[in-house]
């Protein structure tokens, strides 16, 4: 059995140099050195020595160890059992989800050092916020953002975490657990937190490749991979998980169908009316919903091809996500002989039938209930920590938890019991045009259930009334209108939050009340959302209460807190990009100094972040009146070439649509030889790059290129870069339209325009898409019937397929729609924000509505772009050959050797 005692850190060393582990341990005064080639060997040998474990304090060991990672704080060393007095008890935890993670936080706060903690996690990673997987799937956030405890946290607290180790057996007599990788670990106290497993429908074909469940990050990654095909997906199950999966896959460009066995969606949380509204809202997003759909089989030879239903119909799919429910993962406990019903049976203190073993989380069954929402699991974490700390508590008490759907744009709230009944009364409010439905169910003048759809800000208030079993007889008339209407006060935007009592629950996930949040803001002087999250945990899990928390901050801090200004342009101002853009137009500001003066910039002349942004906004908003400020442009745009690491420049002439000629190629060859340009390279945008040109040579290089008809390719610009094309109907046997011609036409129309960030385009002549148009900022796929316009793709730091804007019939229409789209982006985008990020912010539907659906708007955008081009389409190279900005290209003086050496 391993124990720890403190010894001076310099007497322990362990090096991992990628090939071998060098261990130099001196726990008892004798020097000993060993070398191991594998972490497993080291662990086995150390265990055989009777109790030396690995000692370290550097985080890179964690990464190097990856699979087996064992961390003990520097300055401590394990020594054989019984040698020491005052030893820490050994706590082993099976599972590393949100419940045990929260339990450890409480335990470390209450009795730090009481336990030596070892965690076995079947997933090969740290503790992350599982309820945020849906936003990861839809692309609203990513894995890094949802990590709760990073590697550093485990090191800091001296916790040993085995990643990717599944416990296969518990020996309750010897009090040990054994992992699938052969690690045996003894315990004094054991906590089982194995969570739940997704229910896989027992139908033929349920194990075909392409059939997934939705439980952990691996499932999300598998779905993201499948979504790249942009093909058809089916989600089986119209509950929370199924709808979130469907929405995420839809956001990733898949065609999604939801199959639900029952007549209405989420029937366990919603009544039929709200279920219908939800179905309509889901279908408005382009997701098909089929209720009363009984899955009979999954079809496919080698992988999924479709889902067969009991009514004989078949839904084609290349990806099937089974989200038909979860069940507690109690197998391990059952095998160990613990009392198990649906879940592992525990008492109110979360004790199993074995006095040395606790269970908590989704795997546990307490008072006849099993749980899947985070709030009760966090409540269990509190109780379990108190139990382990040896403190008496009231124990775990069941309470209803509100349900919220994490699909952006759909507001839905439900709590309690909403079935009809003889002894019940209900109050209903419907507003069909606003898509609002509210229903409160009363029994003996007390709320027992609430369903809100479309407008959910009173959810916390109704939950509070229900929890307190408050008598609502006096406010029955106005109850359904919500809290703001009680007592006759005029409802303002903040009224609802202001009127909440201090004990109203704001954050359902973490059980944080209004009073706790406002108290912390006042007592600790918190001023940012991040601070409030860190100190109170409010809004730190699913984030659906963020708006409420921000309102509370405004309430307490008044004007000091402005949630809209959380992301200023830079340190020179408190304003964000959108406010600056709006104010430039509203106040008619037409110079950088006017902007800085009127908007109260904190610095004399800005910085390298805000000046280029302001310059762009002014160029875009006042094309005829604003004089472009070259001193506020990044060097590449100032000198119209790309700076390289050694201070030389690269030169990329425009090749319209990627088409060139012998004359052009000869001119390039001559220039390369004449100026001894060291590297010539073909770019990804179908042009030729000459690299390593001295700045002094640029005007002469441009002069030579200009003679052959070349103009600047703007390869340096936050502006239109290239329009890639394929050879289309000119040559290709599959081409449906003149893609080369359209590409050149677009490029000739739009060159010279400045945009918030670079814009790359492509035109493919058929859906085989040789010009790779579906990962561009704007792309066109020619089809027999016309032109499919795509936008918002990315193939850089992010990879993202495009969205379809719409299909138009003629080349003229294609050009008009593309120009209008780019102008809309020019007018709304934040500086350096690519089209795909702008589109995510503004909403695809809104963009389609304005460009495809609103002829007047589209024409206005088009006209403004055309006007702006009158001032933009002057070849900057020719201007500089003619002498513009001469000072840029010549040193102001040269000092000879004798003078300098004097």
């Amino acid at each position, binding site marked *: 059995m391993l124990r720890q005692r403190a010894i001076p850190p310099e007497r322990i060393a362990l090096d991992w140099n990628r090939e071998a582990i060098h261990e130099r341990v001196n726990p008892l005064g004798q020097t000993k050195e060993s070398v191991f080639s594998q972490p497993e060997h080291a662990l086995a040998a150390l265990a055989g020595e009777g109790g030396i474990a690995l000692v370290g304090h550097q985080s890179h060991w964690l990464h190097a160890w990856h699979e087996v990672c064992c961390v003990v704080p520097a300055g401590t060393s394990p020594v054989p059992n019984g040698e020491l007095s005052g030893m820490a008890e050994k706590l082993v935890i099976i599972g590393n989800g949100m419940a045990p993670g929260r339990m450890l936080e409480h335990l470390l706060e209450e009795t730090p050092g009481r336990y030596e903690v070892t965690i076995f996690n079947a997933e090969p990673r740290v503790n992350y916020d599982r309820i945020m997987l849906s936003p990861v799937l839809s692309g609203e956030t990513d894995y890094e953002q949802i990590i709760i405890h990073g590697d550093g946290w485990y090191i800091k607290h001296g916790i040993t975490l085995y990643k990717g180790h599944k416990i296969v057996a518990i020996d309750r007599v010897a009090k040990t657990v054994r992992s699938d990788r052969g690690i045996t670990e003894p315990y004094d106290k054991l906590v089982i937190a194995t969570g739940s497993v997704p229910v896989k429908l027992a139908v033929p074909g349920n194990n075909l490749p392409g059939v997934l469940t939705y439980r952990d990050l691996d499932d999300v990654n598998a779905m993201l991979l499948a979504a790249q095909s942009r093909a058809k997906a089916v989600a089986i199950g119209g509950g929370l998980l199924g709808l979130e999966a469907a929405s995420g896959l839809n956001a990733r460009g898949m065609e999604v169908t939801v199959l639900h066995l029952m007549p209405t969606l989420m029937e366990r949380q919603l009544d039929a009316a709200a279920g219908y509204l939800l179905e309509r809202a889901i279908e408005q997003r382009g997701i098909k919903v089929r209720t009363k759909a009984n899955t009979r089989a999954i079809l496919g030879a080698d992988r999924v091809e479709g889902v067969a239903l009991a009514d004989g119909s078949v839904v084609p799919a290349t990806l099937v996500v089974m989200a038909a429910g979860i069940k507690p993962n109690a197998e391990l406990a059952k095998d160990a002989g613990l009392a198990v019903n649906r879940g592992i049976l525990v008492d109110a203190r979360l004790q199993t039938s074995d006095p040395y073993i606790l269970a908590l989380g989704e795997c546990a069954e307490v008072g006849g209930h099993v749980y899947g929402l985070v709030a009760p699991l966090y409540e269990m974490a509190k109780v379990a920590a108190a139990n382990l700390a040896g403190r008496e508590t009231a124990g775990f008490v069941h309470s209803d938890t509100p349900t919220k759907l994490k699909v952006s744009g759909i507001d839905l709230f439900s709590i309690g019991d909403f079935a009809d009944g003889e002894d019940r009364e209900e109050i209903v409010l419907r507003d069909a045009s606003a898509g609002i439905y509210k229903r409160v169910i009363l029994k003996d003048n007390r709320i027992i259930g609430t369903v809100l759809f479309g407008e959910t800000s009173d959810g916390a208030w109704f939950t509070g009334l229900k929890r307190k079993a408050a008598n609502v007889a006096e406010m029955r008339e106005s109850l359904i209108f919500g809290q703001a209407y009680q007592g006759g006060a005029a409802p303002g935007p903040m009224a609802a939050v202001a009127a909440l009592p201090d004990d109203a629950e704001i954050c359902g996930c973490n059980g944080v009340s209004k009073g706790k949040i406002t108290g912390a803001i006042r007592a600790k002087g918190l001023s940012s959302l991040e601070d409030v999250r860190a100190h109170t945990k409010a809004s730190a899990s699913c984030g659906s209460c963020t708006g409420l928390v921000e309102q509370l901050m405004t309430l307490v801090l008044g004007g000091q807190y402005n949630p809209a200004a959380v992301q200023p342009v830079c340190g020179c101002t408190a304003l964000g990009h959108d406010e600056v853009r709006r104010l430039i137009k509203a106040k008619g500001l037409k110079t950088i100094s006017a902007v800085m003066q009127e908007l109260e910039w904190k*610095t*004399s*002349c*800005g*910085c*390298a972040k805000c*000046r*280029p942004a302001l310059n762009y906004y002014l160029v875009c908003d006042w094309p005829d009146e604003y004089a472009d400020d*070259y*001193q*506020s*442009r*990044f*060097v*590449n745009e100032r*000198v119209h070439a790309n*700076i390289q*690491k*050694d*201070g030389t420049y690269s030169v990329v002439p425009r090749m319209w649509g990627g088409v060139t000629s012998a004359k052009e190629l000869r001119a390039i060859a001559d220039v390369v030889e004449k100026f001894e340009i060291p590297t010539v390279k073909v770019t990804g945008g179908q042009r030729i790059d000459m690299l390593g040109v001295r700045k002094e040579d640029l005007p002469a290089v441009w002069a030579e290129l200009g003679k052959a008809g070349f103009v600047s390719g703007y390869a340096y610009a936050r502006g239109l870069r290239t329009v890639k094309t394929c050879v289309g109907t000119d040559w290709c046997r599959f081409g449906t339209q003149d893609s080369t011609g359209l590409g050149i036409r677009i490029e000739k129309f739009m060159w010279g325009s400045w945009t918030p960030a670079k814009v790359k385009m492509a035109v493919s002549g058929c859906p085989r898409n040789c010009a790779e148009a579906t990962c561009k900022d704007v792309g066109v796929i020619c089809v027999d019937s016309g032109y499919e316009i795509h936008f918002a793709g990315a193939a850089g730091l992010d990879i993202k397929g495009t969205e379809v804007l719409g299909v138009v019939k003629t080349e003229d229409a294609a050009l008009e729609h593309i120009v209008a789209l780019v102008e809309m982006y020019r007018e709304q985008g934040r500086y350096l924000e690519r089209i795909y990020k702008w589109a995510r912010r503004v909403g695809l539907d809104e963009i389609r509505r304005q460009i495809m659906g609103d002829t007047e708007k589209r024409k206005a955008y088009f006209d403004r772009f055309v006007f702006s081009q009158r001032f933009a389409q002057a070849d900057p190279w020719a201007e500089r050959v003619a002498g513009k900005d001469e*000072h840029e290209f010549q*040193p*102001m*003086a*040269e*000092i*000879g*050797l004798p*003078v*300098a*050496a*004097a």
Partner: protein
Amino acid sequence: MGVAANEGHPRERDPGRWIGIGSASDIPRRGARCVVTPRGRIAVFRTIENRYFAIEDRCPHKAGPLSQGIVHGRAVTCPLHNWVISLESGEAEGADEGSVGTFALKVEDGQLFISVEALAGRVA
């Protein structure tokens, strides 16, 4: 060392001989020009308040040409990796660490002069 030239403000000590490098108006406001010397380039800056500074044209980070950066306040942002260098001290600002040499300048009758002594001693 490195004293900024500012018309009407006598410098603290005379660094000796001066060499003319051109007219102050050759440099755009919030801009820079280069002076080529056998021992490397010097960047000469003009700020929004018409003060002039000369520093090595070589960022302490990866040797980027500071003369090509955006000039703001009395600092310049390197065009390669956005280090911000103080024109007054030559020190990197913010969390970055490093410095470049600075050179004494003076303006007389709209002409810029750089200290020969400083040139001989400082240009690396």
